[in-house]
Structure formats: structure tokens, C-alpha cells
């Protein structure tokens, strides 16, 4: 693991105003290094998803800054944010969110096509990625023809196909049985080791969190614990 800081979060605050003012994140300070495999944990409403959405630049903070590779992403235009999401970030959500009208291969190709890659080259890369997650024999299956665990594997392949520097998982195993859940965890672990990408997982599964290298615990929008395994 290198000491290169890939994410630097300073005084990050996110306030939702929905009738009453909700302070979802309250002055969070956090640095994440390249290649880290960490979990953000905390009770419901502690702000862990909010933090993840901000790191994924799907949301904009009320105040504070987020530097991705030293660049402030909080004040970018939609076009720039979209480009960064496409090239630097990979998303895995609780529900796989595969495009139902496309097969596994086409789903994994999509981030490459969005990035402007030629179809033939994208197909080749997507095939390799699906083989890497163990779905080389399910390329032409659609989401409704795959099991929950298989769908989530496709989602993992799609998140990683563009070789992003940061992979974000929002309860990536929350919808799976414990066996599939373990499999996905092992897969993410393996990919983390092989590609040296940064993995940030939000989970309330303490068992899974315990297996990561670093746990960041949030309560009421504040970091209350930041522990690294040694």
C-alpha cells in the first residue's frame, strides 16, 4: 500500500432541508490512501450513504471540499463530474441496477461505450472482465436469467471494467444470502489485491466490515472511530 492520498476530505458538511433541517454530515475530515480496502459503518441515518454519495460525486456538499487525486470535485460542471464518474469511479449498489434490456456482456460494455471506446474493443474488454469475476459462461444472459449473486458479479465487473481508481460499494452484499455475500466479498478482496484499486464499502454487516483493513464509524454525521488493522 502506498502513502499516496487519493481522497482528501475537509470539513465536509451536508445539510438536507426538508421541512426541518437535517445535518446528515457534520464537519467530516478524512483521508483515504490509494489501494485501501475500507468499510464505512454506522447505524441507519448516521450519514454513511451520504458520505459515499459525496465521494462518488453523485451529490454536492453544503460546505467543505473533497479532493480526488488532488482535484476539488465539489465545484465541477455536470460534464466534468460525469467524466470523472466514468473514468475514476466504479459503483456497486445494493441492488445490481443492471440495464434489463441488455445482456451481461452489454451491461459491462456500457461504461466503456460511454467513454467512447469502439464496440469491438469494448466487447473484448468486457468479456475479459466477466471471465475474471467467474461469469465467462454467462455472457449473453440477461439480468432476469441470472441469480442474485451472479447479477451482483456482473455489477462488480461493470464497476471495474473502466479500471477506476476508486470502487464504491453501497451495501454491495446487502441483498444476498450469506454464501453469495461471502463470495462477493472474496471477489472484491481479490480484485483489490490484483488491481491495487481503492475500495470503499458502506455496510451495516459488522461481520463483513471486520474483514476490511480499516473501519470508519459514523454516528450522527460525525466520524467517531477510525481504526486500521495492523
Amino acid at each position, binding site marked *: 500500500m502506498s502513502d499516496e492520498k487519493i481522497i482528501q476530505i475537509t470539513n465536509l458538511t451536508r445539510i438536507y432541508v426538508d421541512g426541518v433541517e437535517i445535518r446528515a454530515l457534520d464537519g467530516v475530515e478524512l483521508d483515504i490512501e490509494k489501494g485501501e480496502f475500507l468499510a464505512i459503518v454506522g447505524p441507519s441515518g448516521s450519514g454513511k450513504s451520504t458520505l459515499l*454519495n459525496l465521494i*462518488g460525486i*453523485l*451529490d454536492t456538499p453544503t460546505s467543505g471540499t473533497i479532493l480526488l487525486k488532488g482535484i476539488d470535485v465539489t465545484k465541477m460542471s*455536470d*460534464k466534468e463530474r*460525469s*467524466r*470523472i*464518474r*466514468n*473514468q475514476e*469511479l466504479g*459503483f456497486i*449498489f445494493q*441492488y445490481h*441496477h443492471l*440495464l*434489463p*434490456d*441488455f445482456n451481461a456482456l452489454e451491461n459491462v460494455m*456500457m*461504461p466503456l*461505450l*460511454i*467513454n467512447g471506446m469502439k464496440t469491438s474493443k469494448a466487447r473484448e474488454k468486457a468479456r475479459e472482465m466477466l471471465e475474471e469475476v467467474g461469469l465467462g459462461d454467462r455472457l449473453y444472459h440477461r439480468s432476469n436469467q441470472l441469480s442474485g449473486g451472479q447479477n451482483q458479479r456482473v455489477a462488480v465487473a*461493470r464497476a471495474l471494467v473502466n479500471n477506476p481508481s476508486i470502487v464504491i460499494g453501497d451495501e454491495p452484499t446487502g441483498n444476498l444470502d450469506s454464501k453469495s455475500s461471502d463470495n462477493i466479498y472474496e471477489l472484491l478482496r481479490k480484485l483489490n489485491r490484483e488491481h491495487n484499486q481503492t475500495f470503499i464499502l458502506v455496510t451495516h454487516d459488522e461481520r463483513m466490515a471486520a474483514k476490511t483493513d480499516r473501519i470508519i464509524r459514523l454516528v450522527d454525521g460525525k466520524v467517531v472511530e477510525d481504526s486500521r488493522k495492523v
Partner: protein
Amino acid sequence: MFEMTIAIRHIRSRRRQTFFSVIAVALAVAIIIISMSMLSGFMKNIIDVTVENQAHITVSPREDEDFIFLYHGLENYIRKQEGVIAVSSYYQGEAALQYRHNAEGVALFGVNPEDEDRVVQKEKDMIAGDFGSLDLPGRYMVIGSKLARNLDVDIGDTVTAQFPGSAPADFKISGIIQTGTQADETAAYANLKRVQDFYNAGDIITGMGIRVSDIYAANTLANKIDREADYDAVSWMEQNSEILDLIETQSQFVLIFYILIFAISGFGIANILIMIVMEKVGEIGMLMAMGVPRKSILFIFLLEACILGMAGVMIGSALGYVSALFLASYSIPIPPEMYFGMDHLPILIVPENFIIAGIFAMAIITMAGIYPARRASKMNPVEAIHSV
């Protein structure tokens, strides 16, 4: 072009709704094409009847004069103008025609039959005798078919023309003409020289008819003659401005219906797109997470509207074409008294109508796509992803 790929898949995933919304557009386009073909046919028919039975440009005496005096010079000047096919000088006067106990007031035209035929094609409207007979030595006359019936005369009968101040003159009927217009009841034609003599006039005329090659350039030439020769020249368009204005007004009125018909099909398209957008909320959020900019999301759904519209326009054009052909060949009868002498539904299939209907449909359908597309592109990705 991943936008196109996604748009096509969205449409294909909803075959039934796609089918019905495309059919709605197709029907709208077909109805409008048929309607436009009828209007075009109607318009063309009116223009044809008008320009065939009328000189394209009519030259009248100067404002304060009753006659064109030195008309040969004017005739030469007009013949030299570009686009002029023929010129016919005439002397028009009023007269009473008498045959036995019957008498009718007529508009008596003195013409050079050859020139007149070249300007208004008299010969083809002759139902008995020929128009050229007016050139024969002696006094001959061609009269309208209804006039002939009213006077109870036929070819070979002799009628007497009378006019206050003129000596009565006998004319032998050498032809009967039927144009389908008012003239059939009121017009009588004779040789220019004989008519001038009848009215005790010298070699003068009361007007001149001109035929041109491009009927839509008639206005320009009329204005030129008006300006340069200082005679009152009026084109067929100005002479028939009332009818043409009526058609114009009707076209504008019909346009409102077209817009309404297209709007209905536009709602159909908007409806299916709104359904797709609602169904794909999570997918739209995921696309944004994958790095699809909002503009591309907007583009995807506008593309979907365009694809549906295009399919509808193509099917509708084919349907409209076939239906128009069918209506044209079936020759549906209509009352001629109400429709300027047309006895069957006029249909004219012109490419412009298809292009206009197509562009019009596409514009309205694209507009119908704006609302759902904007809704999709304005989604908050976080909310969209977690809505599932």
C-alpha cells in the same frame, strides 16, 4: 453512440405500446396527407379551370379612356416580353341577339379566332362547329351552349345582333362552345373586324388577353406592362383574388385541425415516454453513476421520441399514399354546383405534402418528447438509484 443503443432497446422492450403509439402517429400523418392531397387537388382544379378559360393577363384601356387605340404597337411590345406565348386583341361590346321570338342580352366579343384560341384554347371547348370558322368571309358567330339553348338556335341558324346606334346585323351560327363557366350563358364571339364594323368603331379594341408560359410569373409581367406601357394589366391571380383568398383562408383554418390531430398523436408519444421514464428511474440513476451526462440522458429520450415519430411518419406516408391513390381512382362524386364545376373529389398527390406532413409531425413529436426527456435528465441520481 451508446445513446442510440439505449434508446432503441427501450423502445424494443415495450413492443405493444410502441406499436400503438406508432400507429397513432401513422394515422395522423395519413389523414393529414389525404386531406392535403384533396386540398391540393381542389386548388389545382380551380387554377386549371381559371387559367384555361381566362387569359393569364388581361390588358384594359387607360383609366380615362374606353378603348385601346393604337393597339398594334402594344401588341408587338407584349409579344416581345419573355414568357409570352400568345396575345389576343378583342373588342367587347354589349348586344341583343334575336332569333325568331327569342332575344338574349350578350357580351359580344370580336376576336381573331387564331389568336384567341392560342390564348384561351377555345377550340377544345367547341361542342359543335369550329372556332376557326370566324375567319371565313361573311358574318359568322360562335355562341355559348346555354345561350344557344335559350335562343333555341343551332348550327346554320341566323341570329340578328342589335345595339342602339348600330344597324342590326345578321350572323350565322357556325359553332357552339361549352366551357363550364358563366360565359356559356352570356358570351358570343365573332370576327374582330365585323364586330368593329357593327359598332361603327375604327380599328380599335377594348382589351387584350395574354397567355404566358409560367402562370405564377403572370403577376410580375402584369406589373411590368402596367409600369412600362402604362396600360391597366391585371393577372389571373388578381382577377381571381377572392377565390384564391378563400382557399388561403380555408388552408389556415385546416392548419388548426392538422395541429390538433398531430397534438393528439404527440400526446400518445409523450405518454409512452413518460411510462418508460417512470419505469427506468433506477436505470437512469445508474447511467448517471456510470458517467452519462445529463445532456446525454435528455438526448436518449428525445431520440426515442424521434425514432417513434419517424416510424409513424414512414408508415403514415405509405398509408396516406395508398389511400390517396385509392380515393383518386375511385372518383367519389361531389355536387358540381358547389365545387366550381368539379364533379368528383379532386386528389392531387404531390411530394411537398408528404414532406410538410413529415416535418410537421416530427416537430410536434419531438416537442412531445421534451417533457419526459427533461424529467429524466433532471433526476437526482442518488434518489433515482435508491428509488428501486
